[in-house]
C-alpha cells in the first residue's frame, strides 16, 4: 500500500526576496514551518522579522523566490490565503469611532468568520460589560491590543502570525496570550511568533529561527513543554479543535509533523 502523502507545510519560503523600493526586506529566506508547529522568529530590531510575517500574511509581495501558505500561492489566491491567516501586528487595525464589540464584529464578519465566536472571545480577553461598549478611540494601548487579540481568537484562523505579541500587555494579559497560543497549538493551528526578546515566549515554541539581515541565519530547538499544555480556560472554538479520533491532528499536537530539529544551541545556516 502506498504511503499517505504528507500534507504541505503551513509556511514554505524558498529563496524569498522582498523589497521596499530598492531596500531589501527579505534577502533570500528559506523556511519551512509544518502544520501545527509553533515557531519563534527571533532577531534584533530591523532584522526582517516583521517583514517575514507580513510576507507570510500576503501583505508584502515577493520580488523573487517562492512562497506557499497552507498549500496556497498568495499571489494567485490572495483572498483565500488571507481568510486563513491572522496577523497580530504593531497596529491594532481598529476604528476609533466603533465600540470594542463593533470592531470585533466587523473584523469577524469581514473575514467570513462565525459571529457566534465573538462573545466567547470578548470574555476571554476581559472585554465585557461597559468596556465592550466603549469606543476604541478611548482605549489604552494595552486594551487596544486585547481587542486585536479578541479579533484573532474570534476568527481562529489556521495560521497565527504574532509580531511582538507581548508588547503593551500587562502581566495578566500576557498569561492569557500564552494560554491562547498553547490552545491554538493544541488545536492544530500553526503559530509564528516574532520577538526580539526570546525569553518570554521561548516556552511557547518548539523551535526558534534566527533572522538577521533579512535572512534565516540559524535555528535551534526549544523545550517542547508548553505546546501541549492543557488549558484551564475554555479556549478554542469547538469547530477549530481537531476531532479526538483524527490521528493526523493528534500527530500535529504531539509534534510528529515538526521538522527534524537542528542539533546544538545555534546552527548557522549560512
Amino acid at each position, binding site marked *: 500500500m502506498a504511503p499517505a502523502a504528507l500534507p504541505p507545510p503551513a509556511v514554505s519560503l524558498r529563496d524569498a526576496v522582498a523589497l521596499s523600493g530598492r531596500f531589501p526586506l527579505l534577502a533570500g529566506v528559506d523556511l519551512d514551518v509544518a502544520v501545527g508547529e509553533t515557531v519563534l522568529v527571533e532577531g534584533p530590531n530591523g532584522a526582517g522579522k516583521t517583514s517575514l510575517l507580513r510576507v507570510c*500574511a500576503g501583505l508584502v509581495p515577493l520580488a523573487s523566490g517562492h512562497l506557499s501558505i497552507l498549500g496556497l500561492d498568495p499571489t494567485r489566491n*490572495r483572498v483565500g490565503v488571507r481568510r486563513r*491567516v*491572522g496577523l497580530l501586528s504593531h497596529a*491594532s*487595525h481598529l*476604528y*476609533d*469611532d466603533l465600540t470594542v464589540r463593533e470592531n470585533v464584529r466587523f473584523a469577524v464578519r469581514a473575514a467570513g468568520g462565525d459571529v457566534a465566536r465573538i462573545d466567547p472571545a470578548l470574555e476571554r480577553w476581559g472585554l465585557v460589560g461597559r468596556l465592550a461598549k466603549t*469606543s476604541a478611540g478611548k482605549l489604552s494601548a494595552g486594551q487596544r491590543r486585547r481587542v486585536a487579540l479578541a479579533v484573532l481568537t474570534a476568527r481562529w484562523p489556521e495560521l497565527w502570525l504574532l509580531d511582538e505579541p507581548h508588547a503593551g500587555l500587562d502581566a495578566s494579559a500576557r498569561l492569557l496570550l500564552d494560554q491562547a497560543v498553547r490552545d491554538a497549538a493544541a488545536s492544530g493551528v500553526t503559530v509564528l511568533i516574532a520577538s526580539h526578546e526570546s525569553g518570554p515566549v521561548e516556552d511557547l515554541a518548539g523551535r526558534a529561527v534566527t533572522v538577521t539581515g533579512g535572512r534565516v541565519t540559524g535555528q535551534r530547538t526549544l523545550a517542547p513543554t508548553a505546546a501541549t499544555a492543557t488549558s484551564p480556560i475554555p479556549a478554542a472554538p469547538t469547530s477549530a479543535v481537531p476531532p479526538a479520533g483524527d490521528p493526523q491532528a493528534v500527530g500535529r499536537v504531539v509534534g510528529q509533523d515538526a521538522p527534524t530539529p537542528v542539533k546544538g544551541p545555534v546552527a548557522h545556516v549560512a
Partner: protein
Amino acid sequence: MWRDAALVAGKDLRIEGRSRVALSQVAPFGIVALVLFAFALGPDRETMAKGAPGLFWVAVLFCTVLAIQRSVSVESSDGARDGLRLSGIDPAGLYLGKAVAVAAQLIVLEALLAVGVVLLYGAHIEVPWMIAVSCLLGTIGLAATGTLYGALSSGLRVRETLLPFLLLPIAAPVLLAGTRIWQAAMAGGTPSDGTQWLRLLVVFDAVYLAVGVVLFGPIQETA
C-alpha cells in the same frame, strides 16, 4: 461582493454617524463656500441666480474632496487598511461599500446645498425631478471616481494635496453635465433639453463604477 459592500457601507456610515464629520464640518464648509460665492458675485439677484447651477456643483465638488479624504483617513489610522486587506474582504465589495457610504453622505450634503442655493441665490427650480436625477447620477459619479482616486492616493504621504489634484479634473464632466441639467431645470425646459447630459452622466457612472470594481483591488495592494 454585495455582502461585503453592505458590510463596509454600514461600517462607514456608522462611523460617520458617531463622528458627524460630514454634518458638522463638510456641510458648513459647503454653505460657507456658497456664501462666499454670493459675496463675490455681488448683490445682483439675477447674476446670482444665473450662476447658481455652476456654483452649486463647484461647492459639491469641494465637499466631495473632503468626504473622500475623510473616507480615506478612516482606513489610514491604526493600520485599519491593512486590517481590511488581511480580512480577505472582496476588493470589489470594499470599493462599492465605500462608494455607497460616500454617496449617501453626498446626497444629504447636496440637499442642504440645494436649499442654500435657493435661499441665497434666489434660484427658481421649475423642473425638480431633473434636479433630483442630476444630483443622483452626479453623486454616483463623484463617489465612484472619488473612492477610486482616494485609494490611489491613500498610501502616499502627500495624499491630502494630491487627491484634489487628481480628482477635480476627472470630475469635470459631472460639473459640466450637472450644471447644464440644472440650467435646463431652472429655465423650465423640456426633459429633452437635459437628456444628452443625463446620458453623459450615466455613461460616466457606468465607466467609473466598472473601472473601480476591477482596479480597486490592485490599487489597494500597491498604494
